[in-house]
């Protein structure tokens, strides 16, 4: 598999002349097409900053991020929006659905943005609603459905335009264990059946166990990397827990 994304010596500093915080400190790694990568780390370790950099919402202080041959750190603001629209999908802990739109309309919105035909939008929409099992609640508003359904809707919205990369920021953070499991299975299916590349930030070992590879972040640096390989999910979970135990269990209490 070829590299879909390459992160080269990325740095992100915040603050002013007197006080500088290194949120991301010379991080380099790559993500292959169709890979499911997870990032774990305590709060303040730079997970979300890294995700924001990858998702073009934030600018790097130094370094490069390549999507294929495109270096997004070189793009202008308008080009970045266009890039985001075409290549990225987002799933957040807080769902981030628009509360004035029904679930179906939330999914439709990203497609109308790309000026697709009515028929195309309708077909894709019903396909996604079916795939994520939220057909029955499609006409409900976000506040009328459960957290799990909201998150699956956010997922459907994220993959509606066949993105190059699906970015997930603590997607199970606000869900109960059952809903979290359903969502993670959905991610797994998307990854395996539709070859969707997923980049997920999480602090939950169970969620992380669905990934192919985990990057452990601390103080803005990658301090460890774990690949699932051919391991069973249960074994991979144990391996993750072992790494967490090595760091003093710090990761599991930082919500």
């Amino acid at each position, binding site marked *: 598999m070829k590299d879909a994304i390459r992160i080269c010596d990325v740095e992100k500093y915040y603050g002013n002349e007197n006080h500088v915080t290194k949120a991301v400190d010379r991080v380099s790694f790559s993500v292959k097409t169709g890979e499911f990568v997870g990032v774990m780390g305590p709060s303040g370790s730079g997970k979300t900053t890294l995700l924001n950099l990858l*998702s073009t*919402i*934030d*600018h790097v202080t130094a370094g490069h991020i390549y999507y294929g041959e495109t270096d997004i750190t070189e793009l202008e*603001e*308008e080009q*970045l*929006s*266009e890039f*985001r*629209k*075409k290549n*990225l999908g*987002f799933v957040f802990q807080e769902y*981030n*659905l*628009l*509360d*004035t*739109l*029904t679930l179906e*309309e939330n999914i*439709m*919105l*990203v497609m*109308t*943005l790309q*000026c*697709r*035909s*009515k028929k195309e*939008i*309708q077909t894709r929409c019903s396909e996604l609603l079916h795939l994520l099992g939220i057909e029955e609640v499609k*006409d409900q*508003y976000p*506040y009328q459905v459960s957290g799990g359904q909201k998150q699956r809707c956010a997922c459907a*919205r994220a993959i509606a335009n066949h993105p190059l990369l699906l970015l997930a920021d603590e997607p199970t953070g606000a869900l109960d264990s059952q809903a979290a499991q359903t969502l993670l299975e959905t991610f797994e299916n998307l990854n395996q059946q539709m070859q969707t590349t997923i980049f997920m930030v999480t602090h939950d070992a169970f969620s992380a166990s669905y990934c192919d590879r985990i990057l452990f972040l601390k103080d803005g640096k990658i301090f460890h990397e774990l690949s699932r390989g051919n391991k069973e999910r249960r074994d991979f979970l144990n391996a993750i827990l072992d790494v967490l135990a090595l760091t003093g269990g710090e990761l599991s209490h930082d919500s």
Partner: protein
Amino acid sequence: MIRKLAFRNVKRMTKDYLVYFITMAVVSALMFSFNTLLFSKEIQNLFEMAGTMAIMTGLATFFIVLIVAWLINYMVHFILEKRSREFGIYLLAGMKKKEIAGLYLFENLLLGTGAFFVGMLLGFFLQQILLSIFYSMIQMNYHLHLEFSWNCIVMTAASYGGCYLLALLRCRKKFKKMNIRDLMDSQKENESISAKNENRKKIFFPLSVIFIILFGFFLFCYKEWDIGIAILFLFGLVITIYLFYVGISAWISCYVRKKGNAVYCGNTLLLLRQLSAKVRTLSFTMGTLTALFTLALLGSSAALMFNHFQNQILINKFPFDVQVYSSQTDEDFCKEIEVLSRETKINSVYCYNIYENGTNTVNTYLYTHLKEFGTNYQRTDGTPNQKKIDQNNAMVYYDYDTYMAVSDYNYLRKMLKLPQINLKDNEYMFHMKDRVFRQTGDFSDQICIENEGERLRCAGYYTESFSQDGHNGSDYILVVPDSIAQKMRPYYKEMVSDIKGKTPVNLQKKLDDIETGDENICSGSDSIVLFAAKNLVRDNLVPEVKYMLSSIIFPLFYIGLVFLCVSLTVLSVQQLCDSVKYKYRYRILFQIGYSRKEIEKIILQQLVSYYLCPVLMAFVISGMISIYMGARFNFYTGVYTSPLLYFLISASLFLGVYVIYFIITYIGFKQNIEQGYMAR
């Protein structure tokens, strides 16, 4: 400590609700400058009718106090809702409800007092502008000077304080009812998106459109309006205004749910959903804003009507420098001439008779054919009700037709610098008010003017301004050859005079002071603005009438302006607060790929749609009513401005203020949103 907290909160409140603060300052400035007109000693000394302005401004102030109290009340509750969490924290920290209510009240009063003082400073500038406009309207010179009157300041402070008192009285109650949990939670309350009974509610949209069309149809086509029908329509209109918004929001919502074609184009889906949710939550406020906009537009249209009357009709109303009427046909006007020679330099004086020959053919024709009289002087079969005409209770026209000798007529024309006319022995001619002639046209074939049994031929019509409000006839005068006039009976006597130089300010009063018997002047069919008097001194009367008209025009503009500012503040503050509340919506749009430009476009489209919503409805309703009013006004007064123009001018004035508020809101909104998603 509490005082410190209050001052800090006020500072923050002023920043967050700058539009509200500015509006309150503008309102107090407007109050102050309009009250100046009321208390200005100079104006009081100038005019006999200074009381009219006091009554009209007082009336306007009453409505303004009510509406500004509504604004304050609205804002106090609005801010209370926004800050409820903060008040909840105060309660948790151990403050008593009474103390919090007191704190909030104190903050509001501080804000109000601040706005009042800023407004007073602004008021002194506005006062000069207003006085300049006022003096130029009544054709007098105005030299800039500060008009300072304690009464005026006290009156302004009292009206302004009255607004606060009315508004804040109800605020304490609200605090009493609240508990910590309510306070902490109320900020989380979102716009209700519940779609209950949408299908049923959407019927209100076509129903209100039908009602408005029906209202327009009745307004222009139905002739027999009475109070009952008017009240019925007014009531219907108020209900329609409110139900329209319930209907349109349900209608949009149903359209989106049905997935109409427009939903799939660009940003329409998002815009329609946002608009319908907003209108649904704010349907009552939107209705009230529409009503206020409508009143503001109608007020300024009516003010413009009087202004056009002043510019077109009033300047021609008194063609002679001085004109005096006397019902005594042997009057020699020696007392009047004595006053004139004492007070002025007379260029020329001319006394002449108005004649009658015992007939009232023209009066009968006019009583039965002018639309002003309707069918009042007709029998049920449409023929003239001669008995009623002969009784002449209304005293619009004299009992007999009025005649003038051609030599007198030509002398008067010469005074007015108009060309002379010639009449043959068997001819007569009309001099009529232009307004009346426009309605009657040539009606000489409908009437018979005779001299000793021989029918005279009509030689034509003249319609120049000729003092026909009871002096040179009422509405019309028939001009006949001298030989024919001499055979008639003198009816009443007139004197006109041309004065050299400036007319003394109190000449009219001096002439009025001369003792005479009862004088019954029949003033003709003018209505709305009518000025019938025995003595007419042009240069005294024109400013007096203009002052009287100003006392209608100024308060109407005053009301219009305040209503407009109040409504726009509500709209603006609503939007600005939403921008803080909905930052995250735009952040989501940014995340899913909307560029900064696209988001700016959505904000613009969204704001335009919110702002247009109440205005479009107000434009339709006030447009119809003001065109109707304008047409009636022109009909009764003879002003020839197109009725549509009154509306268009006031609509453009209105839009001018509207655009200012819109721009302020748009900039603020954009900044708030950008802070949300552009934060690096």
